[in-house]
């Protein structure tokens, strides 16, 4: 399959993620949307890796390694992020980010 | 080295003064200002014999092409002398006053003197800028700590105004720095930078705004009456006697030689602004009831005339301006000393409540009359020679400008005489009945002022000789 398909798919996923982040109010869902963005990037990275490997780049594997690192960092973010969301939930009994605006000032 | 000492003595004395108690700061201030006066006179003598020995250069930030480069030319010597005399006069006048936190007061006064001297001696643009700012900070603190009721807002306005102006100047300095052939901040490199006329067009404004705010020239003057009014009078003396000269000095030292084409291009605009300022300030002064504000507006008018004369673009007017810088400084300090005395005795500044002080304080009245006449520019007082030269220079440039500026002189006579009348003549009231005459310190200070007024009025040649070199150099570069 041409690489454009993968690019379009990834961009679509990425945009869904971005829209989700911007439009949803539930912290967990926002967080899932961020994960979606990261995974869209992973997919794109792998397709580009394949593309450059087909084009004869000898170091195209580095993109796949990049994906590993993205996953690792995503996991770290999951750990920290969920801990934060839990903390907020325990204090406010809500994961709606609108509640945060109440805390202002 | 002499030049460095001129800066260092007040600076170190200022730092020490912070740590002293009781009358220590007073004495230290006296000693330091006396020493600087002596040094300034010494440097005048040196200037006549070996002018090059007054220059001092040391490495500072070699990567930037900036050096610690101080030096004195005629104008520099004159202004350093003015600074030293001004602070001496201030310290003499206030010797009997007891300020709260006197150590900080004297320390800041001395630091501002150091900053001002630094400005007048700097031959490196970056250094000039730094001293320019440094002179401001102590004055800001002085005004805000010991000033009148509305001091905080007013002095803050003053600070922000001047700070903004100087930042614009900084932009200009940096721009020119990149145009200099050897990437250096020295005055010589700046004057030899090949700036194209288009650049000069806007560079002029970057500098001019900074200087105009300091002088102040209409429409950048709005901070000035408020600040003069709210500041403690000793600070006002420094402000109006010396600090406004920074602006004029800046134009002569850094604006005209560095962006001559820009200055030529805009000189008409600048002069028109100055003349508007003269007439506007004079008109306001005439209807002013507040003594301090009246003198403040008169100062705007006088400075406006000097500034207009600078842009008149010939050697004569430049010479006049420089002489007048010194003389105006002396005169206005004299006036402020009297204001200080009045305020000290009466505790008021409103002219309507004064009157009849000639009876109670005859010595003060005499001094007031002499100084006021000098301020108007009566012949045989020091004000005359400067104004004469400026007017003749302005006349050569454009008759109409001269005519309008001349209006200022007439108006100045009107409001000054009006002030004299309101303060010392007429009916006394119960407030003025209680007044006492000058104390020895005040008498000493005012006598010094009057001696200078008369000596320089009768025999202005040494002053003219002193500055002729500078005016020669500048008008050639211009």
């Amino acid at each position: 399959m041409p690489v454009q398909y993968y690019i379009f798919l990834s961009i679509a996923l990425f945009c869904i993620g971005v829209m989700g982040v911007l439009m949803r109010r539930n912290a967990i869902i926002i967080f899932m949307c961020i994960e979606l963005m990261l995974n869209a990037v992973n997919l794109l990275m792998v397709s580009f890796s394949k593309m450059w490997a087909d084009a004869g780049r000898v170091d195209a594997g580095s993109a796949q390694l990049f994906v590993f690192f993205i996953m690792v960092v995503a996991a770290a973010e999951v750990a920290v992020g969920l801990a934060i969301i839990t903390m907020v939930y325990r204090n406010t009994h809500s994961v709606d980010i609108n509640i945060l605006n109440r805390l202002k000032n | 080295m002499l030049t460095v000492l001129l800066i260092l003595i007040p600076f170190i004395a200022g730092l020490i003064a912070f740590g002293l108690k009781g009358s220590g700061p007073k004495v230290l201030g006296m000693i330091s200002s006396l020493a600087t006066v002596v040094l300034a006179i010494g440097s005048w003598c040196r200037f006549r014999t070996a002018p090059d020995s007054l220059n001092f250069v040391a490495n500072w930030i070699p990567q930037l092409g900036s050096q610690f480069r101080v030096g004195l030319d005629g104008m520099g010597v004159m202004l350093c002398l003015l600074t030293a005399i001004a602070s001496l006069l201030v310290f003499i006048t206030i010797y009997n006053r007891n300020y709260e936190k006197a150590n900080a007061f004297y320390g800041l006064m001395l630091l501002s003197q150091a900053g001002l001297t630094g400005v007048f001696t700097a031959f490196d643009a970056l250094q000039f800028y730094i001293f320019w700012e440094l002179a401001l900070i102590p004055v800001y603190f002085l005004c805000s700590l010991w000033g009148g009721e509305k001091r905080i807002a007013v002095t803050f306005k003053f600070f922000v105004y001047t700070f903004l102006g100087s930042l614009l100047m900084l932009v200009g300095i940096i721009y020119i720095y990149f145009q200099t052939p050897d990437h250096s901040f020295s005055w010589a490199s700046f004057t030899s930078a090949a700036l194209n006329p288009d650049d000069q067009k806007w560079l002029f404004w970057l500098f001019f705004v900074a200087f105009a705010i300091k002088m102040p020239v209409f429409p950048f003057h709005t901070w000035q009456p408020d600040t003069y009014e709210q500041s403690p009078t000793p600070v006002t003396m420094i402000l109006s006697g010396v600090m406004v000269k920074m602006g004029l000095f800046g134009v002569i030292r850094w604006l005209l030689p560095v962006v001559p084409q820009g200055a030529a291009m805009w000189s008409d605009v600048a002069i028109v602004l100055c003349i508007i300022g003269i007439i506007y300030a004079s008109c306001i002064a005439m209807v002013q009831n507040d003594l301090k504000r009246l003198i403040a507006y008169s100062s705007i008018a006088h400075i406006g005339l000097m500034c207009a004369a600078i842009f008149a673009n010939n050697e004569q007017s430049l010479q006049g301006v420089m002489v007048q810088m010194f003389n105006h400084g002396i005169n206005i300090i004299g006036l402020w000393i009297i204001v200080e005395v009045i305020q000290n005795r009466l505790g008021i500044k409103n002219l309507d409540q004064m009157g009849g002080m000639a009876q109670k304080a005859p010595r003060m009245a005499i001094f007031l009359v002499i100084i006021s006449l000098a301020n108007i520019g009566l012949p045989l007082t020091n004000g005359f020679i400067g104004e004469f030269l400026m007017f003749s220079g302005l006349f050569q440039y454009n008759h109409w400008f001269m005519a309008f500026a001349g209006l200022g002189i007439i108006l100045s006579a009107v409001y000054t005489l009006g002030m004299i009348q309101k303060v010392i003549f007429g009916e006394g009231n119960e407030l003025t009945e209680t007044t006492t005459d000058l104390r020895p310190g005040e008498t000493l200070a005012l006598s010094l002022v009057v001696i200078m007024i008369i000596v320089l009025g009768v025999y202005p040649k040494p002053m003219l000789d002193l500055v002729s070199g500078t005016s020669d150099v500048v008008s050639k570069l211009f």
Partner: protein
Amino acid sequence: MHIKLKTSCTRRRFFSFRLVKKDNILNPNRFDIWSTYSIFAHSDNVFIGKLMYTETVFLSATTTPFSYFPIVLQLIAALGFVGITMLATHFLGPKRKTSDKLINFESGIEQKGNARQPVAIKYFLTAILFVLFDVEVIFFYPYAVNFRELGWEGFTAVLMFVGFFLCGFIYITKKGALKWED
């Protein structure tokens, strides 16, 4: 929250497929088979550098997307089986619903409150730690595939990695994150 955690780890596995590649041609000599797995040619760089900047062959022709086709078939079959059974049991069984029957069973006593309350933080902590350690484990996969080429040098690098892994492990243990008896 657990659900979310699982997503991330499963997803990770599916993606990690792409790095690992092998040559499908079987060689009767098992020790020779190993040499055909040279994904990364030899170079002088050290561990990570080696992985990043050496010649790599990906998704070789022996494993194509088509190899996964039977899995799709099986998925369809399994889905069909599950779906049909679910439908069948829905229609076959009797329906005699009473309100008592439809409330939740709590050992016969009356239901109290909502069941969906936060559970002990320990479970959550376990899940988080799992995510972190599992991610560390996935770094071993590419290493395990290539460790022969990387030799002792790579081994020391991995020892270092394991060292840090253990540091984290000891840390959480000492912090009491895995202490269940309290």
